[in-house]
Structures are given as structure tokens and as C-alpha cells.
């Protein structure tokens, strides 16, 4: 059934021109519908402004820096020591938000370069090339500001996620992820997205948001240029691709950011006006946080399909605490609701001041595409493929007995278990040597009790990262309850690499 039209975009634009348009923020719309109902709200309101301000890694900027003399066909280039990619002809470059400074990785990256340029700062630029008959230069160095660029456009492949996972960590160590810092043993949780303020949550059937929709982007006008990558409408996980003129943007709404041990990114402010063309849109823009759900996902599991530990609403997420199993867990937003609200207000002001007009999309966003996993043709090994039976002992044994076992089995690691085979600790041949040198007699004195472990379904790369991070040479393989299933050593891993 097609919803009955109550006004057109042309009519709304006429009202904007006269300064008569009734514009409310998404927050105000929800209150209005609650007080007066959908029918009245649909009649009164012309436009609802929605917004989000979150970290968006698939962000970047296309720039054109003009030709040098003698000219150069750039092969590789850097801005403030961040490599910028060269996707096209001689002097077109793309600053990717996640590319990191080679000397300050994880602290400074493409997102910061974009922010500094928008702030009007100068960046150090250098480039190299192989040289051709038409482009003879092989090196160029300069300093550049945004005014030196012919084009400087934000071009983001994926933005404005309709909703996103809530992240939590079951491991016994802190992990650093694109969802921020996650404390061990479900110590905290994080979420992203603006919930009921998010543009796509307020237009979930993509009736008004489509290719060509004019939006607020980073403090300037921008456009939706299509669905974003990984657009997944069937699961209410829509995304959009956007473009906007960085030269007109404001650093208040575009921020370089660094997620410790994960990398750099860009916070992008997006505001989208939703024209209330029919009652259905008035109803949709009244959506509340308690109606928008997401899954609590265990990021402690280093796999594509991470286990879900439950469902939570954005109402619960925004309250600062969620319940996971029996536990109450503090939860951090990673998006800034404060800035999102400021964007919705700013966009509302622009429309009221006749400084921003609405557009009809020239094409709808797809509503039925799927987001498939990668086709992999080579099998990736997991810990269970490489693990071998562990040589074990119990805490009551003597150092001599353990030393003998190390020699008999020619191993370097003895896993200490209790009577039921649960992990109690680990002893290495080095521990035994040191015990002899220091005259220690009791095995219990030399057991390492905080043991870094692996699980059978863990990728080999993840196990290998743990060995390097902790500077150790073996990981007992345990099940979720801590029962020892085997052991994986650095020798097993190097054998795998040698083939």
C-alpha cells in the first residue's frame, strides 16, 4: 500500500524559501508524537532532522594537488608521514582515515591529516615516482594547505550505520578493538550509533534517503551518493556512501581519532533531514530507543562469527548499564550523542534560515541486498589443527620428577593440572634450571599461575600474536571451563610457516 501523500518536497522547499517550514529535531518529533499523536504531528511538521557523530573507519578524502613543474606521475605519497594512496592519474590522491603515520602508528593517521587540513593547518607533503617521458620527475616535496588543493572532498564508502553491535570481552585480558578498550571478564561494554536519532533508524525503508539526498556532512553540505559498503537492509543494518566538500567543513564535526592498539579513524558528523511526506514517515520518525535492539557480541572470540550473549535496546545502552547474564555491566557509547544533538539542531537552524533545501532522491537505496562473507579458497588453520597432547604434572610432584619428564618426553613445557585435568599453571624447562641454580626445592614455588591460553577454534594468527605479545613460547589449549585439551608451541607454529 502506498502511503497517502500529505505534502511534496517541492512544497516543503517553497515553505523553506518563505521561512515558514516547520522543522523539528528527531528528539522533538518523538515528544510531539507522544503528546499529540501521529496524525497531528504529520500535519504540523514538515521536516525532522536526524543525526549521528561516530567513528567511521571507511572514511577518507579525495584530493587533487595540481601539477608540479617538471611534472610527476605520483607512485607513492605521504602527508605528515601518513601514506596517502594514489588511486588515479598523476596528482589525484586519497587520504584513508585508517592509514597510520609510519613513525607514530596507532596515534596519528589519515583521520588526523584530514582534520588538520580542515583546520587550515599546513601538512608536509612528499611523493616519489618512477619517471616517464611525459612525467619526468621522480621526487617532489612541499607543504600544502587546503587552499592549495584543487579538490578536497570527503568520500566515505560506509557511514551512518543504522545500528551496531554492543561489544564485550570474555577473555581474561584487556583487548583493544575497533569498539574501543574492552576490559577482561565482561568488565565493561561499548556500543556505537545514535539509536533513535540515527538517520536510517528514522527512515528504515529508505523512502526519503537515497542517491542524491542533500545532507549535513562535517559541518557543510554533502550528498548521499549511494548505499554504503556492507549495506545490509534485511537485518536493519543499512549504511550510506557520502561525499562532501572538506574545504567548507568544521573541525567541530570532523575529528581524527586513535583507538589504542587498533588504529586511527575519523569521527564524522552526519545530519539528514527527513521530509514528512506522509503519516507513515511521521510514525517512523517517532521511533524510540526501546524499539531499537542490537546484540551483545563477545569480541574476546577472534573469529568472524562471534557469539552473541543477548539482546539489548538502545534505551538500555544509553542508560549506561546493561545486564549480561547475571552481571550488570557499565557500557560506554563510542558515538557522541551530545554532538549528534548539536548537528540535528544546526541542520534545523539552516533549514529555518532558508539556507538548506531538501532534495528528492534520484534513485532509492537497495532494500534487499545481502552482505556476504569472503569466499576463501585456501583453508586457514586453527589451533586445534596444530595442537598436540600436553605433558602434564600435578602440584604435589617434586621438581626432580618434573625434570625427568621433561627429558623423557623431550618437551620444554609441563602443564600443571588438578585431578580432573583443569589448568593450574605451567612450568618450563627454564623454570627448572633456575630452581636448581637458586636452590629451590618445591615445585609450587616455581609454577607460573597466570597462564596465557588458547582455545581450539582460535585462529593460528591469534595464538601467534599472544606468544609475541607475552614473550612466551607455548600456550596450553583449554576449553571454556579451563580443562586442558593440549598444547601449542612456537615450534609448531614455525613448522607451519616452513610448510
Amino acid at each position: 500500500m502506498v502511503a497517502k501523500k500529505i505534502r511534496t518536497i517541492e512544497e516543503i522547499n517553497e515553505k523553506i524559501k518563505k521561512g515558514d517550514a516547520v522543522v523539528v529535531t528527531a528528539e522533538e518529533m518523538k515528544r510531539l508524537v507522544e503528546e499529540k499523536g501521529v496524525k497531528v504531528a504529520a500535519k504540523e511538521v514538515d521536516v525532522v532532522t536526524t543525526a549521528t557523530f561516530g567513528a567511521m573507519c571507511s572514511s577518507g578524502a579525495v584530493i587533487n594537488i595540481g601539477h608540479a613543474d617538471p611534472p610527476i606521475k605520483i607512485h607513492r605519497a605521504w602527508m605528515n608521514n601518513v601514506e596517502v594512496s594514489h588511486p588515479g592519474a598523476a596528482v589525484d590522491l586519497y587520504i584513508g582515515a585508517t592509514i597510520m603515520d609510519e613513525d607514530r602508528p596507532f596515534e596519528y593517521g589519515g583521520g588526523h591529516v584530514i582534520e588538520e587540513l580542515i583546520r587550515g593547518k599546513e601538512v608536509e607533503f612528499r611523493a616519489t615516482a618512477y619517471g616517464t617521458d611525459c612525467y619526468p620527475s621522480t621526487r617532489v616535496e612541499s607543504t600544502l594547505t587546503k587552499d592549495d588543493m584543487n579538490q578536497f572532498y570527503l568520500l566515505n564508502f560506509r557511514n551512518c550505520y543504522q545500528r551496531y553491535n554492543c561489544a564485550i570481552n570474555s577473555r581474561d585480558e584487556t583487548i583493544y578493538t575497533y569498539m574501543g578498550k574492552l576490559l577482561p571478564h565482561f568488565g565493561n561494554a561499548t556500543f556505537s550509533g545514535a539509536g533513535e536519532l540515527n538517520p536510517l533508524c528514522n527512515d528504515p525503508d529508505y523512502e526519503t534517503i537515497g542517491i542524491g539526498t542533500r545532507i549535513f556532512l562535517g559541518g557543510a553540505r554533502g550528498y548521499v551518493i549511494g548505499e554504503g559498503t556492507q549495506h545490509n537492509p534485511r537485518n536493519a543494518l543499512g549504511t550510506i556512501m557520502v561525499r562532501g566538500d572538506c574545504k567548507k567543513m568544521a573541525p567541530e564535526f570532523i575529528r581524527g581519532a586513535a583507538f589504542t592498539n587498533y588504529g586511527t579513524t575519523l569521527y564524522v558528523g552526519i545530519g539528514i533531514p527527513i521530509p514528512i511526506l506522509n503519516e507513515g514517515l511521521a510514525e517512523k520518525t517517532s521511533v524510540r530507543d526501546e524499539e531499537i535492539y542490537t546484540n551483545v557480541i563477545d569480541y574476546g572470540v577472534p573469529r568472524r562469527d562471534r557469539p552473541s550473549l543477548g539482546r539489548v535496546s538502545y534505551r538500555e545502552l544509553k542508560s549506561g548499564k546493561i545486564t549480561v547474564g547475571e552481571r550488570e555491566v557499565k557500557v560506554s557509547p563510542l558515538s557522541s550523542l551530545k554532538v549528534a544533538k548539536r548537528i540535528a539542531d544546526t541542520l534545523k537552524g539552516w533549514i529555518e534560515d532558508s539556507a538548506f533545501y531538501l532534495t528528492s532522491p534520484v534513485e532509492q537505496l537497495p532494500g534487499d541486498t545481502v552482505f556476504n562473507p569472503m569466499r576463501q579458497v585456501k583453508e586457514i588453520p586453527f589451533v586445534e589443527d596444530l595442537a598436540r597432547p600436553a605433558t602434564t604434572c600435578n602440584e604435589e610432584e617434586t621438581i626432580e620428577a618434573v625434570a625427568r619428564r621433561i627429558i623423557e618426553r623431550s618437551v620444554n613445557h609441563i602443564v600443571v593440572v588438578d585431578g580432573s585435568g583443569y589448568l593450574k599453571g605451567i612450568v618450563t624447562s627454564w623454570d627448572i634450571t633456575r630452581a636448581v641454580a637458586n636452590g629451590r626445592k618445591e615445585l609450587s614455588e616455581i609454577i607460573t599461575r597466570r597462564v596465557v591460553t588458547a582455545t581450539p577454534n582460535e585462529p593460528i594468527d591469534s595464538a601467534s600474536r599472544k606468544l609475541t605479545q607475552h614473550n612466551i613460547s607455548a600456550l596450553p589449549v583449554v576449553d571454556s571451563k579451563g580443562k586442558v585439551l593440549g598444547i601449542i608451541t612456537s615450534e609448531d607454529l614455525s613448522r607451519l610457516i616452513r610448510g
Partner: protein
Amino acid sequence: MTKILLKFSEELVDQPITSQIILDLRVPLNILNANVTPQGGEILADVPSKDVDRVVQAFRERGVVVAIQRGIEVDEERCIDCGACYSICPVDAISFKEDNSIAFDDERCISCGLCGDACPTRAIRV
């Protein structure tokens, strides 16, 4: 209460300076955070505000470097009020205000530093 940060050099760590001062001055010090190795280290402690001067003087007389702590520093210009720090804080010193901005409670803060590397815009200095 006032927080003081005590810095012990390698030469001082084998002396029971902190307990000696507690006994001498009969002032209860609450140790909030300690990281001391044989090479030296730091202790963060809460001291009743009325006794701060005496306690600080006593530590300094024994060669300990003392800094009076003011919790974490937040660069308001860099902070985007995202709240990534909020769930990390073990003592609930970080909260949200009505307008969704972040509030830091210096009184509660124990300067543990956990929030520092959780901040995406590096606005927090501990």
C-alpha cells in the same frame, strides 16, 4: 581528602618510609595505587586535607619527591563527549550530565590511568 603522589628513588625503596610516617604522625594514609619495584616507583595516596602539609613535609625530609595530585586533566577542546572513558573507570568518577556531556569527578578519581588509552581523541592526560 587530598591526593598526593610519592616518587621513590632506587635508594629509598628498601626503607619503610611510608609506614614510618604513618606511625610518627599518626595520620591514616589510604594507598590508592602503588607501583614500586627495586628500581624505584610511585605511590598515590589519599591524605586528610588538614594533615597534607605535615605529611608532605615528612616525606620530603626523607628524600621522597611529592606532587599534590589533581586527578586527570581533560582537554575540553579535544574532548567530543563520546563517553568511551565512562565504562572503563573503576571508581565511577566519570558520568554523563543531563545534556550528554561527560563529567569528571576529581574527588573520586584515583589517577589509575585506565581511561587515558581509551580516549579516541587523546583528550585525557593522567
